[in-house]
């Protein structure tokens, strides 16, 4: 069966510090991978998605970037965090062209 992992689970970082959040998927090959941000327990904002290694589509111009160095690894990064980067970050995967996405447990980021 497939599983998706995210770490860390929680993170408190000062403004201006760098960020690296990691997501890995097990039990499937060539998945589509997605990064979302969720504010205040409401809807999901798609940040980036990837259909293959090195292929990244950005949805929202912002202070963040994403990379996919391996087939089942997706990384969300920032060089300098802003207060507005605080939120709940979710990684998800789907099969190629699949309509169902499966989410990881999320990372709670607080920027102080």
């Amino acid at each position, binding site marked *: 069966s497939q599983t998706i992992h995210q770490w860390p689970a929680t993170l408190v970082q000062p403004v201006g510090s760098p960020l690296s959040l990691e997501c890995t998927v097990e039990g499937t090959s060539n998945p589509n991978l997605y990064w979302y941000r969720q504010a205040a327990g409401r809807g999901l904002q*798609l940040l980036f*998605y990837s259909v293959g290694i090195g292929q990244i589509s950005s949805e929202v111009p912002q202070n963040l970037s994403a990379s996919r160095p391996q087939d089942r690894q997706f990384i969300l990064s920032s060089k300098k965090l802003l207060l507005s980067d605080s939120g709940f970050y979710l990684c998800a995967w*789907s099969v190629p*062209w699949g*309509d169902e*996405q499966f989410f990881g447990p999320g990372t*709670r980021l607080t920027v102080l």
Partner: protein
Amino acid sequence: TQLLEQSPQFLSIQEGENLTVYCNSSSVFSSLQWYRQEPGEGPVLLVTVVTGGEVKKLKRLTFQFGDARKDSSLHITAAQPGDTGLYLCAGFRRGGSEKLVFGKGTKLTVNP
């Protein structure tokens, strides 16, 4: 822009009551998914509906896809405190981008 509007945004009811939440759009979707999310966790897929008019049941939850595949509803019978959570609908268009369009969610609280 494909938007999914969910209503109500918030719903607080007593244990044993019935409820319906709605997910509406002016766009046609190939399929629609419903997720439930508990605080501090990732969304969990409940169901996918594909055919216009389709009805799916999951224990006390009944999901319906509109005939025109533009809207959906979720009905919960005899709600229990364990049903508490954020209910999200998401639409997928086959042949478009490999992304889901998410509604902003309905936050349900079932009081014992």
